[in-house]
Structure formats: C-alpha cells, structure tokens
C-alpha cells in the first residue's frame, strides 16, 4: 500500500512539474507559434520588415484585379487596416473576394506585399447552397428592415 502511494505521489509531482514547464514554454513562445500576421500587426511594424513572413486576413471585396498573365493584385484586410498584395501564380479553389487568405512573401519598398505563395483559409461553416442563399437573403432583409426602422427616427 505504501509503495503504491509513493508511486502515485511521484507521478502527481511529475505531472505538476511538467504542466508548469509546458505553461512557461508556451508563455515564452507566445505569438511565435502563430502562422501569420494580420494587417494591423503589419501596420504596427510587428511583422518582420526585411524577410519573408505570412500575411493573413480577408480579401477585401472589389479590390481583386487580374493583371497580365497570371499576376493578380488585391487588398488583404482585417477590417482595421489593409495591405496591398501582388501575386503571380495559380490561386487555390476557395480564393474569392471576401474570403480568408494567407499569403507568404515580403514587403516591397513601395508598401506592396509581394507574395510567393497564396493559400485560402476557410471557416468552420458547412451547409448546403440553398441554406447559404437563404441565410444571405435573410441577412439582406435584416439590413433592409433595420434601415426601414431607422428611417422614421
């Protein structure tokens, strides 16, 4: 019985030490485990200025321009700041205006982010197209209704 308690004690102590160590390590690593920087972080100069990093956000609707050959220009936004991006290459299936995107590259001297690779980031929502349409319509109606309600004021 005694040996069993002792083993259990050792095990518990070991796990506590391990948990503390893990906590410290992750605290220290902090943002370094993040896969990308947001446009706000770029604006605050938190992203590396002289070497390659990843920029993540939404493709701002209405900013996608297809240039000659396979070059595209678009703006990446997080609704606070935007960054202009230039990219030459094949875009993934889910790349669309208003969709999440992660671009790898570096900042050019003219403030345009030159991407070498563009990945699409999607959300955790899955539904049939009819439902998506209905939701979209519902959303539009809601906006209209809100506009109507606000008018008499």
């Amino acid at each position, binding site marked *: 019985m005694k040996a*069993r308690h002792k*083993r*259990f004690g050792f*095990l518990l102590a*070991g*796990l506590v030490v*391990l*948990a503390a160590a*893990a906590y410290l390590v*992750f605290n220290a690593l902090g*943002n370094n*485990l*993040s*896969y*990308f*920087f*947001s446009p706000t972080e770029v604006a605050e100069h938190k992203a590396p200025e002289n070497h390659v990093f990843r920029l*993540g956000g939404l493709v701002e609707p209405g900013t996608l321009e297809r240039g000659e050959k396979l070059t595209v220009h678009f703006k990446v936004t997080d609704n606070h700041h935007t960054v202009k991006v230039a990219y030459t290459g*094949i*875009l*993934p*299936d*889910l*790349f669309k205006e208003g969709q999440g995107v*992660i671009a790898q590259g570096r900042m050019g001297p003219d403030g345009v982010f030159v991407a070498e*690779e*563009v*990945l*699409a*980031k*999607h*959300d*955790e*929502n*899955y*539904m*049939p*197209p*009819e*439902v*998506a*349409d209905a939701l979209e319509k519902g959303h539009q109606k809601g906006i209209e209704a809100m506009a109507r309600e606000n008018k008499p004021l």
Partner: protein
Amino acid sequence: MSGRIFNIYRFSSPATFYPLAGKIARIAAWIALLLLAVGLYMSFFVAPTDYKQGEGYRIIFIHVPAAWMSMFIYLVMAFWAGIGLVFNTRLSSMMAQALAPTGAIMTFIALWTGAFWGKPMWGAWWVWDARLTSELILFFLYIGFIALQGAIDDNRRADRAGAVLLLVGVVNIPIIYFSVKWWNTLHQGASVSIKNGSSMSTIMLQAMLVMTFAFWAYSIAVSLYRVRSIILEREKDARWVSELPEVGR
C-alpha cells in the same frame, strides 16, 4: 486477489478478461460494420453538397472522426498506462499496448485526409501551422511508444517506460485541441464544440456523428482483439492458457 469483495477486480485478471474481451469485440465489430454502412451512405447520398467546397468537403466525414479518435485513444492509453504504473496491474498496461497501433492509424488517417483536403481547398498539402504540427507530434508519440515497447525485452520495464512517455505526451492533447483558438492558424476553428454547438447543417453533422461512432466501435473491436493476443503472449506459461479450447494439442 480477493475477488469476492471487490467485484471489479475480477475483470482485472487476464484470465477472466480474455473471454469477456472476445465477446465485446465481436459485438463492437458488428456495430462498427453496421454504422460504417449507414455512415458511408449518409456521407455520400444523404448529406448535401457544401455551398463553398462542393463535393470536396465530404472528406470531413472521415477526417474529423479520425482526428477525434486519434486524441481520444491517446487519452485512454495514457489513462490505462497511468493506472498500470500506479497500481501495478498487468492488464491495464496490456490495454495501453493494444490501443497504440489503432491510435497511430487514426492519427495517420487524420493527417493523410487532411493533406488531401488541404491541397484543393487551401492550396497546399502541408503547412507548418500549430494544428497540423501538433497532430504530427501526436503521430510521433504513438510511433515512439510502439518502438519503446518493442525495444525493451522485459515487459514490466517496457510498460513503465511506455507509461512515462505517454503521460508526458498528454500535454500535447490540449495543444492540438485548442491550437486553432490560441494561435493564428491556417486550419479553421472547430465546427463542433460543447460551448458553441455546431456550425454545420444538421444532416451533415448527423452523418459525421454516425461515422464517429463507427470509428469508435471499430477501435474498440480491433484493440480488444489485439489485447487478447497480447494476453496470450504474456501469459503463455499460465495454466488457464494451455486449457483454452482454441489451443490445439
């Protein structure tokens, strides 16, 4: 062992657990077959096309169940290994050993299907983001455990070393689970969570849950069949083994 006082201890003896495991495994195998048939039918013919990812999203019906099982099996293994370490029960260490290959396969399936899903949707087979990397570490933990158990000849010492590895590796499980919340990752957030419910349409969620239970039943069946072999290997000199009807004379 005083079997009359503590009834649960009766099943911690390999001799009594051996036939019980066989019975449960057989039932679980039938449940797994049934659920797999229903789940696959739902995955392809009942669940509708996704509004954004078209038919490509159907990979979710194996990707998520496999990823859940990969984490769940690890926790169960660590639990049994911990019990074995503290109470010195032979059977619980055997259970941990029996679960390892199935857990490794589930992890591999999650990684493989993830790659085949990431390529068309994200544009990359693999990225080193926190979710993908921590799941890969889980795979190495399984492989490491299996290799460690295989490398040590003395069963008792192998069990103890394996248990320590498993318990240390438990830190990785919350990291996998919460990685998409703690850090910016390419991998999207959880579609199903206890706190926020589900962000999938009901029929898709139902198909995914049926597949999850199918994978669950499969894992139970396979690991219990495997633990029967492990029991026989380790207890080969015991009298009850030599008296088994399946042992030819």
